[in-house]
């Protein structure tokens, strides 16, 4: 084991976890208010692109992060209004958003920078790493966090903040109620749509941060479809974590390690085509294990909820 978990592995694991974690927090918030957000992939991609553009234009990483959040929030208006005021099907809207993000970033890449595939430029300032020499020799956690971007720290702080807000404050109680039983919240005078719209937009900002970490964190480059399924892994983390930020974070840690191990296996000579799939295989396995023998009814509510026309994502267990 000692040879397996090295400072480098820990560092790359924590780095890999960050964007998934931020995106899954976005998914948790949306899920809590009853909006099934499958558009995390697209929101992240928009954030990643805008992050690079913002950094390129302002010559500062902060400018990039701000642009990433802003763009992802604007993009999220589609889901925020489409799935609430206009009562569209969130599954279809999210599929459309993911494709729009993919097409739009590729289009803008060509139009704005005249390149296709990837875009990098010395003018793009990447996120500075916070070096904490005091912890760099502490095994595991210290190795992981000694040299990370501010967004990594922000992500873990947000896990705590989102948990406290959800479970300790009036706002959190209201959010949870809006997702679980919107008409009950309505009869108590809560503007369900407003809560949903604002929550989806805030979640959009988080997904934008996730995108910025992706394009400005370890690298300073935008590549077409560079999210490469991370948004979907975040969606699964939300499901596995039953919309609880702490559990979702635990799922993200699992996937992050799978990712880091695949990098390690690659360095030991395995072809990357095989190692790259390990996060997805772990994800699928986790899904199967967590869902086994959930319900005896032949048409389970979860299954019905995950088909088009269904309202929200699978409920947390129906105690």
């Amino acid at each position, binding site marked *: 084991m000692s040879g397996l978990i090295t400072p480098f592995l820990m560092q790359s694991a924590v780095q890999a976890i960050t964007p998934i974690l931020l995106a899954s927090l976005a998914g948790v918030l949306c899920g809590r208010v009853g909006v099934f957000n499958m558009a995390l992939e697209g929101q992240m991609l928009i954030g990643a692109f805008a992050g690079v553009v913002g950094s390129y234009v302002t010559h500062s990483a902060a400018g990039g992060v701000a642009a990433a959040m802003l763009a992802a929030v604007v993009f999220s208006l589609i889901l925020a209004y489409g799935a609430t005021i206009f009562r569209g099907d969130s599954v279809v809207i999210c599929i459309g958003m993911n494709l729009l993000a993919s097409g739009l970033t590729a289009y803008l890449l060509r139009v704005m920078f005249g390149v296709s595939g990837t875009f990098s430029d010395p003018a793009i300032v990447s996120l500075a790493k916070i070096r904490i020499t005091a912890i760099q020799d502490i095994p595991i956690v210290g190795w992981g966090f000694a040299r990370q971007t501010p967004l990594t720290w922000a992500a873990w702080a947000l896990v705590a903040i989102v948990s406290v807000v959800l479970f*300790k*404050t*009036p706002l959190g*109680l*209201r959010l*949870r*109620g809006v997702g*679980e*039983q919107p*008409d*009950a*919240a*309505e*009869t*108590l*005078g*809560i*503007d369900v749509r407003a809560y949903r719209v604002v929550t989806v937009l805030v979640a959009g900002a988080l997904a934008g941060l996730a995108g910025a970490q992706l394009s400005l964190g370890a690298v300073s480059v935008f590549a077409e479809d560079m999210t490469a399924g991370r948004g979907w892994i975040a969606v699964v983390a939300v499901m596995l974590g039953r919309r609880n930020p702490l559990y979702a974070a635990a799922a993200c840690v699992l996937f992050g390690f799978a990712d880091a191990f695949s990098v390690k296996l690659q360095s030991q000579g395995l072809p990357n085509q095989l190692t790259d799939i390990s996060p997805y295989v772990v994800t699928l396995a986790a899904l199967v294990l967590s869902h086994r023998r959930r319900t*005896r*009814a*032949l*048409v389970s509510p979860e299954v019905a909820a995950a088909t088009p026309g269904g309202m929200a994502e699978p409920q*947390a267990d*129906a*105690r």
Partner: protein
Amino acid sequence: MPNDGSLPTASPPAAPELSATGIVKRYGALLANDHIDLSVARGEIHAVMGENGAGKSTLMSILYGLQQPDEGRVLLRGEEVHFRSALDAIGKGMGMVHQAFKLFHSLSVWENIVYGAEPRRGVFIDRAAARRAVADLAARHRLAVDPDAIVSKLSVGVRQRVEILKALYRDARILILDEPTAVLTPQERDSLFAVMRHLAAEGRTILFVTHKLHEVMAITDRVTVLRDGRVVERMTTAETNPREIVRAMTGRSVSLTVEKGLSHPGATLLEAIDLTIAAPGGKPLVDKIALKVRGGEIVGLAGVAGNGQSELVEALVGLRRLDGGKVLVGGIDVTDSDVAARRAAGIAYIPEDRASVGSALAASAADNLAMGFHRTPPLARGGLIDAAAVARRARALIAKFGVKIASESAPVGSLSGGNLQKVVVARELSHAAPALIAEQPTRGVDVGAIEFIHGQLVAERAAGRAVLLVSSELSEILALSDRILVMYEGRVLADVPQDKANEETLGLLMAGRAPEAA
């Protein structure tokens, strides 16, 4: 007597607590409320009666701010109010307990009650204060609940108390109770009535929406009857009688009993032996139930909703896996068969939820009526469907059952509850299956359709078929059944012949008390 309180309520005082005048509400071409006037005095228990679709729900939604009237005025203690949302109404002292409870099931009692008006300490919820407030309120109004209990684990009666506490927490002066007794045992109902009297005595005003006559007679001071969106009668309870109210509601007098003649039971056509359905990590939902229904009899399955009836029925028809026991149809073991095979063996099934189980709302009446007949001649041959035969059959059934629909190719989603139920009943009865399971067959349908459906069930019995009638409506069970089984917490507590059954004994059984103890 209607009111044991100390406040005088005999006649409406000059400035009523609540008055609505000329309320009009339209939904497209439908006039749901047609110039309704309503006046209620302080401390009064006032019944609002009417059939389904008479406009009661619309009126209550308007009074509670969930809908806005197209015309008319609402006055509270003489002052005109314009509710644009429930929040406005709550702020003016309105409270409402909806028929389908509006509770957050995964949250605790206190979270449900303080939701939207939470006591705070800094940015956090003041948990201790919230729990204390709820406990005090519960004690003061004799509504026993545990503030920390999770709502999903509470019985229906307790959930209703939570709903009432929600309104009282917001200091509701006027409480709207929408069909509050529909899901209660008679004993729970009586304790609700005690609470209502207590609240009225405190000077709170109660609008009691119901269609149950004896309850109106038992508890209310005055009655307003709606029909087709209009007020047709205003009465003082002490000066009227059930027959008059029915006439006002329906515009005709209706026989409340069903003529059905003697039963001549034959062979057992539907049988369950030790049928068990386990619950994940709890006591079984259905616990070793034995059940026999013979040809030519109607067996009533009574019980408060949620005591395992739905699960039992799903297991009988094959929509749910068993954890033990057997199901026999016409003497043949069908335990390992799926829905299609059980239907072929002779089960027809009118499900509780006609809209989400019994029909496909976006599909045509023809497609709805074809389900279950669509694999075999005359509707299908060699895997191909004969569209003309499907349409022909649908037209015949629509005519025979008097379904009011433009054509067989119109979607059934636009039909009224009663007409949609007729489509379901028509399809299931046309199977002429030896065993029929009818689950809440008349819930939410109008009086005319109730009479029709009851007649059909009696006709099935006369034709020698076995009918299992599952209903939480005791009057329906008593009127139709030859034998009555009472289900409580997954078990059958008693098997009572019709002539030995009455509302009181059944009510005690439904509350879980064994006959000896009663």
